[in-house]
């Protein structure tokens, strides 16, 4: 069959639509399974799933994807059996549904669907112990003509680049309005703030900016389907019973932040099921219900969103963490329990009793911590032996607006994310001969910010002079930097640098100021890296720094 450009376009549209329908089918299958054995099967849910399968079938036939159409037809058969009450959503049937959903995208690229169809048919033929009686109203009914529940009301899908362009234009408009105010003052001696229409324009542009930022926000639940699926699949694979619970899934977060959190969440969930939760017999022996709970709670707290992932498993063995850390040469003397448990974020450290294909190689929690730092967040851990563990991922609501401290170094004004600023100290010289400062009882290395940024024409690590010493933290490390001047704090609308630029490790982004100047926003982690490599400081910073219980 010849595929024309027009056909190709329709297939692309079909594939885009299929992604969402398959996601709903996957989510629906898991819902059916979690209702199994509990309350009644959700009639509306099966209706909605049937409609999705039906649409997948019809659409595939229209664009000439025969294999996809055949599999969708088999999906319909399974869902029809559920609708009519002939079959109950057993684990085997749900497995077959999920396998078909997982395999469906490959059918769009020409894969053969015979195996999937056979699996679905076999699942239908399996004898079942229990048949759930569904409401009489379903029996023999055709495809529900009127949707009773629209899962995505009033949703329009828009390419992200258009939203980014909208945000950029909104910012540029607000900046242009401020430039106009300056121009009126400079050239016509007019105070624009006294003009009612101008004030109204400023207010409208401010609201436009806020709404543009909001277009980037999506509900947390929108990326959690693979996480939920992992809990289910992994628990079955390792012979455990796990229940997934989500609270606050409607909490909104910047899409860019949320997408970066998907992998860390998957990793934490794998750890929770593989190592955290006990097997049913062990749980019973400990007086716990045989089904473990993995729960994610999302909530907004001021300018941050907290994602708390907790499970009621065995908890982290802190003694074992300390032994492992000591064996790796880490200084663990005198650590509080909270600090000790945070050692799990140290690279290469694993307390898993057995290394499995899924987790337990000491790779991962340090990566989780690194991802959180990249999105300007932090991860905290709390654990009680025998009761469970909670990881709290704390992230900014949006990457677009960042509270910053403004400072000057070698005549250049730069912004430092406020979250990384531990404190600002007077630039007193060190009594110890080293270029150091004492903070919270610990000696920290200090250098000139200009030297670390390469702005000083004759770079030396000497930190004498300056107006203040800023102590910055990238979570694991702290370092002090002397600056020429502190210029206050404020929210900065941060944009990533052009992809045409090489990677600049100490720079997180830039912002166009209302007067048209550019404000460079620094990356504290990269800055500390550079500072530690300055000649004369490298030896001094070899001294081990203790982990903090905040890994921001």
């Amino acid at each position: 069959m010849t595929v024309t450009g027009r056909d190709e376009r329709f297939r692309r549209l079909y594939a885009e639509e299929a992604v969402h329908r398959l996601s709903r089918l996957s989510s629906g299958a898991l819902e059916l399974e979690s209702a199994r054995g509990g309350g009644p099967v959700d009639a509306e849910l099966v209706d909605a799933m049937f409609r999705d399968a039906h649409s997948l079938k019809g659409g595939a036939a229209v664009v000439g994807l025969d294999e996809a159409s055949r599999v969708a037809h088999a999906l319909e058969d399974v869902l029809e059996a559920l609708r009519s009450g002939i079959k109950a959503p057993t684990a085997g049937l749900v497995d077959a549904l999920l396998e078909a959903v997982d395999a469906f995208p490959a059918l769009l690229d020409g894969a053969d669907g015979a195996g999937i169809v056979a699996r679905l048919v076999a699942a239908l033929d399996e004898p079942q112990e229990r048949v759930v009686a569904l409401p009489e109203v379903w029996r023999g009914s055709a495809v529900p003509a009127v949707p009773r529940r629209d899962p995505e009301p009033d949703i329009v899908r828009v390419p992200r680049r258009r939203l980014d362009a909208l945000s950029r234009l909104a910012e540029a408009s607000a900046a242009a309005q401020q430039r106009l105010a300056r121009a009126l003052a400079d050239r016509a001696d007019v105070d624009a703030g006294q003009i009612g229409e101008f004030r109204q324009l400023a207010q409208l542009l401010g609201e436009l900016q806020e709404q543009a930022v909001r277009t980037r926000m999506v509900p947390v639940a929108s990326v959690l389907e693979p996480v939920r699926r992992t809990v289910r699949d992994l628990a079955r694979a390792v012979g455990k019973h796990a229940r997934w619970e989500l609270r606050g899934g409607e909490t909104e977060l910047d899409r860019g932040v949320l997408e970066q959190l998907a992998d860390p969440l998957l990793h934490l969930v794998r750890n929770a099921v593989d190592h955290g939760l006990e097997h049913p017999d062990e749980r019973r022996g400990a007086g716990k219900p045989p089904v473990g709970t993995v729960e994610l709670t999302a909530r907004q707290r001021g300018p941050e969103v907290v994602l708390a992932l907790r499970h009621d498993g065995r908890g982290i063995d802190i003694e074992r963490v300390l032994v492992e850390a000591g064996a790796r040469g880490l200084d663990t003397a005198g650590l509080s329990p909270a600090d000790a448990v945070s050692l799990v974020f140290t690279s290469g450290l694993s307390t898993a009793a057995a290394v499995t294909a899924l987790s337990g190689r000491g790779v991962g929690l340090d990566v989780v911590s690194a991802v959180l730092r990249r999105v300007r967040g932090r991860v905290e851990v709390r654990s009680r032996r025998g009761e469970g563990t909670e990881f709290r991922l704390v992230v900014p609501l949006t990457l677009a607006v960042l509270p910053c401290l403004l400072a000057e170094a070698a005549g250049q004004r730069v912004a430092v994310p406020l979250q990384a600023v531990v404190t600002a100290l007077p630039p007193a010289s060190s009594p110890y001969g080293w270029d150091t400062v004492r903070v919270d009882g610990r000696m920290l290395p200090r250098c000139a910010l200009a030297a670390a940024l390469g702005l000083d024409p004759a770079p030396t690590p000497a930190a004498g002079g300056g107006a203040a010493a800023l102590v910055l933290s990238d979570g694991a490390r702290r370092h002090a930097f002397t600056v020429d001047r502190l210029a206050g704090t404020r929210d900065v609308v941060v944009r990533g640098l052009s992809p045409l630029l090489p990677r600049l490790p100490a720079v997180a982004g830039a912002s166009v100021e209302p007067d048209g100047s550019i404000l460079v926003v620094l990356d504290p982690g990269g800055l500390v890296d550079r500072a530690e490599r300055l000649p004369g400081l490298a030896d001094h910073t070899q001294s081990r720094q203790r982990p903090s219980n905040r890994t921001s």
Partner: protein
Amino acid sequence: MPRALVFPVAGTAAAVPLAAAREVVVDPVATPLPTAPPSVLGLFDLRGESVPLFDGAPLLRLPGRSGRGYAVVVACAAGIAGLATEGPVDLVPLTGGDTPAVLEVEVLLG
């Protein structure tokens, strides 16, 4: 007939196809980017967008540095950028003979 913008880069004539050029900015004020290589002069504001300003001399391995009187704004798949030049910037037809080598913007900035 295709045309090109011709301008000096550290004293050596260079050209970019008109199709790749967006505009010419007079006196771009570039903010230096800490830790950037010598080919990156900084960022300048182009109607609310921060645009990188490049010195073509290191990129073309020419001795010396470009002047900063103008920025020839060029576009490629990865975005837009300014090429610094002391000027003048001329629009000329690409006839072959006298035209300087035409720069491939994608290759130069890629």
